[in-house]
């Protein structure tokens, strides 16, 4: 790896996003932190409702009211996005950081042509030179912009882009719609691509094509990607590092090989155990017992404790810290904090460990 690839592009520090509800404040994202280097692919894995999509929307500051970012920093290329004016933030969106969504049909605007929708990003950020030219020069700029749109459409694998430019979203298949969305995200050549379950709504064969396309973009352009998915297997294949989220918090994080081969947190272990595998025929899939907790009524301690087979008294006493495990992962569980050292671990010892 060279030095450019080591450069940290985005770093989240202790990010919390909350939604006030009638039943109290829901912490959809609670103290999440991670960093993404240039050209890196980070996977965020978790069940639905664990806050993984909210993390992506928080990065772009697109949390819908009444929700808001409560605390933390979103450091992109050295500056905290939370400190930016709304104008400056708009220049980041779509230009530096782009996002693709889960359901391509509802995400494309049904009233506009595909080409227009790709072109809009380009024009919003005036990526193609000649913004201040008038008259015939403007025509030249328009032509160059259109050329760029067609180029991106070709790159994402939309066949006969000249004809498809004027097509409307409902005339596209699901796979083509997702390609069009990726084209919208890529047309300004962003440094970071946020992908929110980009393949969930697609057929398995199309899924593979879309992932392939994203990997190609990552390799050719050096675009860093944050992939949000509920599918640990998919993340394992696609990502460099993985963060597993549960109830708004990261419970385990590390290089993909370590997390998949040696999951440290009981929740990650559970997720891996409930994947059906062809190689182990006849073995029953083991589901994680219980349900995802209600975010409005989280226990003071580990939110996974009620479903966890390793659960002990200490788990419920207070927040569990993220600690480095012996393998280089970080995990939010008392198990590897103390288990080997002393069996009757007391809550008061935690402070010392954290320091």
């Amino acid at each position, binding site marked *: 790896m060279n030095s450019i690839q080591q450069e940290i592009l985005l770093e989240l520090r202790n990010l919390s996003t909350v939604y006030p509800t009638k039943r109290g404040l829901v912490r959809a994202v609670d103290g999440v932190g991670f960093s993404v280097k240039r050209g890196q692919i980070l996977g965020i894995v978790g069940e639905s409702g664990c806050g993984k999509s909210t993390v992506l929307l928080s990065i772009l500051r*697109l949390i819908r009211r009444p929700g808001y970012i409560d605390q933390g920093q979103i450091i992109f290329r050295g500056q905290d996005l939370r400190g930016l004016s709304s104008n400056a933030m708009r220049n980041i969106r779509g230009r530096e950081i782009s*996002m693709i969504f889960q359901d391509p049909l509802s*995400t494309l*605007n049904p*009233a506009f042509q595909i080409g227009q929708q790709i072109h809009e990003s380009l024009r919003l950020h005036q990526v193609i030179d000649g913004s201040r030219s008038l008259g015939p020069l403007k025509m030249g700029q328009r032509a160059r912009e259109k050329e760029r749109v067609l180029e991106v459409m070709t790159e994402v694998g939309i066949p006969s882009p000249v004809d498809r430019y004027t097509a*409307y979203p409902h005339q596209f298949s699901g796979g083509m719609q997702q390609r069009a969305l990726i084209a919208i995200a890529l047309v300004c050549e962003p440094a970071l691509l946020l992908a929110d379950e980009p393949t969930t709504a697609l057929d398995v064969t199309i899924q593979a094509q879309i992932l392939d396309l994203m990997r190609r973009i990552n390799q050719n352009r050096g675009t860093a990607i944050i992939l949000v998915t509920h599918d640990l297997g998919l993340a394992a294949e696609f990502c460099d590092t993985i963060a597993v989220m549960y109830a708004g918090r990261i419970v385990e994080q590390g290089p993909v090989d370590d997390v998949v081969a040696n999951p440290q947190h009981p929740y990650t272990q559970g997720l891996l155990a409930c994947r059906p595998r062809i190689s182990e025929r006849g073995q029953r899939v083991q589901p994680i017992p219980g349900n995802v907790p209600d975010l409005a009524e989280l226990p003071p301690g580990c939110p996974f404790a009620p479903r966890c087979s390793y659960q002990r008294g200490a788990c419920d006493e207070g927040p569990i810290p993220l600690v480095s495990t012996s393998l280089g992962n970080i995990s939010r569980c008392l198990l590897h904090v103390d288990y080997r050292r002393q069996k009757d671990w007391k809550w008061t010892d935690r402070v010392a460990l954290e320091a």
Partner: protein
Amino acid sequence: MRAIKILERVIATIPIMFGVAIMVFLFMRLTPGDPVDIMMGQGGAVSAGEMERLRHEFHLDQPLSIQLWLFLKDAFRGDLGYSYVQKRPVIDLIVERLPATIELALGALIFGLIIAMPVGIISAVRQNSLLDRFSMAGAFLGISMPAFWLGIILILVFSVRLHWLPVQGRIDHSAGLQEVTGLYVLDSLLTGNREAVASSLKHLALPAVTLGAGVAAVVARVLRSSMLETLRSDYVTLARAKGASEWMVVLKHALRNALIPTVTVVGLQIGVLLGGNMIVETVFGWPGLGRLVVTAIFNRDFPLVQGTVMVYAFTFVMANLIVDVLYTYLNPKITL
């Protein structure tokens, strides 16, 4: 392609108009009351022979089927017959009155939309704000208020008390307007007659507001609720994620899609505008079709009622055609 489809739709209105003609003919005949009796009612001293002569002149002594045949045959050639009471061709009476009705309906529609568009959009963007609550309460009032009552209240306030606006009529004749289209506001603009512009607008203001209040209320509510829906949609999130400014998100991405259900409702409101004008024209002494048809119904003036109703029906069908065409521009999923 679109032009051919539109032409097809225009041709398809012929059977519709045919049906309307038969219906209005039959309904008028089913209504109790003999036109000749009503005509002669006030005079009293008319001989039975004279009445027979009139019935014969109007073909009222013929069997219903023959009457219908005569009516349809003439109507097909564009001859809607003679008014029993006014003794003039129905077509002339309609042509004389139609511009006034169109002017009032257009004035009401434009007033309604000018109020409804910003109110609907801003109420949706600032949902649950004071402005939203206030304007939705206003819309509720607008829907529930009967036009005749609103008209009278407006006359009392703006004409009788404040003397700002005239009580009735379309224009001061002292303005010396030269008629071109029969729409006085348009005519005075075309002829550059400033005095007439002011006068015709002043005369139009109260009737248009009275008739347009209901339209404004209905359209504002529909636009608000469809904007609320489109503002929550994924494509609006995408527009924001692209870096579009807030007004572009609202006015381009959200509004464009919210207009689709709104246009349907506006199309339906055209029927309300045509129906409501009978009341409003009566309240404001507006010399349009509405008043003409009301008097004609009371007089059992069969040819005049038939002619007027057919004009109403034709306007309504055409308005719906325009809405359908607009629809295909707004919603690419729909073709004519």
